[in-house]
């Protein structure tokens, strides 16, 4: 410990620490809302400015102090970090425990050729460690060392179906990135952000609407004009949404070399995510309606995901947002996932339809009754009730039909979704716990759900005959328990 050479990050990284404070503020904004409301409501005009100014000063002072007190040291096998202004933290992170490394060339660091190194560790505290202001060369060298460190036991990690080990690169042209923008769901996020100020407070109603009425009273006269305004607004939002995704994934490039997976992306901020194959805990292939129409897939690879993080690391996950069918097959091949044409997907027993059908059966008369008592004619009520029953029941059957699972070459996979598709793959030997679960209803039928807790999320396989479920549990547990391969 004594021979560590502690280093301070460059002065420029104050900008990074300010950005971090702002990010924390945005993340915690919901907690601050009551205080904000109190500030806005007050009639003393200087208060909001005073609070805002004080907060700005606080952020800047804190960022400067944070930068002053942030020290890191790189040892042979670990990073050491000292941070904190009053409460000091001393963190040691072993390279071999690192799940994923990310090099962020933030736009505000790029002119200075500096990067931020971000690594996820496997501790239960789920600490994400960030070192800002490294030179590119040092960051790359460091990442190399981290990812290399974890290869130590060479012979055990090679799987039966080990992916090939020479370098392969897949680039995604701008057209594909545009498709990714179409597929991505950011439009709803933007909507939410835009709608939020509109629904909050009286400012909008008191000021904006009267102003609009005054300026644009002629709009109300023309239906065509108001419709086109709405259409243009929507188009602008859509454009913004696609643009955001394109900024993020611009120039996306996947490199696979020697069991190391790396994705590089971004226009202003260039992010480079990488992980080692052995850290893989889950692979998720998704298709929403748009991507099904465009015949594309998105893939996400998860590593060990500590509880504390599972909700908010979405941004840091290893995601390939748009893949053609061939690219998907190629990725499966690299990841050692069995090829699609060799798979036999198992359905679950049709008794699984009983419970949802019962509730659907209850809904239909309820809808009919609600219609009837709201002065809809009896025949129309019947038609609406029957129609909604038909739709819901068809959906239920389709859901059951699409619900499949498979167990192939040590992988457990589940596929579901009627309109969108979702396919999750788990290396079974890395599972953490297997549960057989029976509600009173399932017990009555003699069935059970199998719950697989992996290090990157939980998967349920519904409606297995109780005996089968228990046998599968015993078999899998025995298999996991006797598997001496490294699992993280």
């Amino acid at each position: 410990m004594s021979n560590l050479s502690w280093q301070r990050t460059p002065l420029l990284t104050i900008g990074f620490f300010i950005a971090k404070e702002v990010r924390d503020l945005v993340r915690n904004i919901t907690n601050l809302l009551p205080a904000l409301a109190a500030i806005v409501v007050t009639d003393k005009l200087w208060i909001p400015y005073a609070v805002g100014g004080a907060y700005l000063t606080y952020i800047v002072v804190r960022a400067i102090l944070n930068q002053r007190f942030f020290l890191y040291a790189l040892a042979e096998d670990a990073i050491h970090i000292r941070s904190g202004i009053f409460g000091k933290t001393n963190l040691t992170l072993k390279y071999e425990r690192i799940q994923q490394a990310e090099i962020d060339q933030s736009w505000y660091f790029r002119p200075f050729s500096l990067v931020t190194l971000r690594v996820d560790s496997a501790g239960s505290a789920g600490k994400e460690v960030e070192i800002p202001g490294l030179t590119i060369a040092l960051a790359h060298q460091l990442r190399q060392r981290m990812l290399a460190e974890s290869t130590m036991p060479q012979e055990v990690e090679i799987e039966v179906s080990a992916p090939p080990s020479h370098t392969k690169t897949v680039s995604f042209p701008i057209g594909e990135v545009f498709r990714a923008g179409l597929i991505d769901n950011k439009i709803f996020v933007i909507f939410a952000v835009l709608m939020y100020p509109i629904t909050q407070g009286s400012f909008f109603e008191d000021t904006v609407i009267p102003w609009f009425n005054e300026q644009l009273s002629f709009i109300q006269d023309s239906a065509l004009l108001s419709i086109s305004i709405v259409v243009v607004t929507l188009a602008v939002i859509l454009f913004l949404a696609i643009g955001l995704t394109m900024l993020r994934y611009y120039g996306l490039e996947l490199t696979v070399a020697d069991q190391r997976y790396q994705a590089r992306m971004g226009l202003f901020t260039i992010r480079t995510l990488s992980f080692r194959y052995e850290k893989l805990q889950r692979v998720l292939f998704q298709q929403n309606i748009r991507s099904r129409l465009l015949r594309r897939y998105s893939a996400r690879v998860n590593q060990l995901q500590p509880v504390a993080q599972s909700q908010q690391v979405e941004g840091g996950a290893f995601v390939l947002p748009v893949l053609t069918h061939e690219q998907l097959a190629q990725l499966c091949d690299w990841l050692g996932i069995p090829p699609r044409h060799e798979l036999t997907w198992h359905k679950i027993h049709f008794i699984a339809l009983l419970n949802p059908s019962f509730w659907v059966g209850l809904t239909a008369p309820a809808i009919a009754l609600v219609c009837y008592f709201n002065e809809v004619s009896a025949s129309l009520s019947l038609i609406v009730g029957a129609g909604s029953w038909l739709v819901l029941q068809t959906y239920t059957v389709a859901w059951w039909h699409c619900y499949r699972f498979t167990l192939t070459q040590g992988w457990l996979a589940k596929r579901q979704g009627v309109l969108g598709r979702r396919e999750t793959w788990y290396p079974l030997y890395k599972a953490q716990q297997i549960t057989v679960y029976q509600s009173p209803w399932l017990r009555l039928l003699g069935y059970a759900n199998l719950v697989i807790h992996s290090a990157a999320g939980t998967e349920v396989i519904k409606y297995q005959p109780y005996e089968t479920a228990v046998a599968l549990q015993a078999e899998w547990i025995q298999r996991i328990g006797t598997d001496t391969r490294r699992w993280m």
Partner: protein
Amino acid sequence: MNLLWQAVEPSYKTYLQLVVLIDMVFLAIAVIVIYALFPEWQWLPAPLWIGIPWAVLTLIMAFIWSARRLQFTAYARSPEAVLLRRGALWQSTRAVPLNRIQHVEVRQGALERLLGLAHLVLYTAGSSGADLSIPGLQLATAETIKNELILTIAKEPTEQESHE
């Protein structure tokens, strides 16, 4: 695979009954406070309409539910795993492979200490629900199992096992 299911201590039932009683008393206090503070609320039902279901629920929970729960709760040890049966109506059988256990903990709440009970928690790296907690053990038993587990885990044939 034949498993030898080990029942938990009978006093676990007493523990469950005490927990039920305390919860129900808190619920009753909350309701009584509402009735005392807002006598003018017309839509509140007559006290009996709440009192009788409360009493029935308390009795069911204290006698039927806790008995059933005690009856079903059991743990077992296979060569590779620890298994736990738990629940009364919603039953689950959990199994944790020994080589996935991160750490082991013996815990004792205030009520448990009163009854000389403890529970043993096996932590894994899985998502939130993936920890296994064996309730209703005697403190000494829990310690014994813990030590035995730790020994077994330490002796595992792999050098890749992680101890966080």
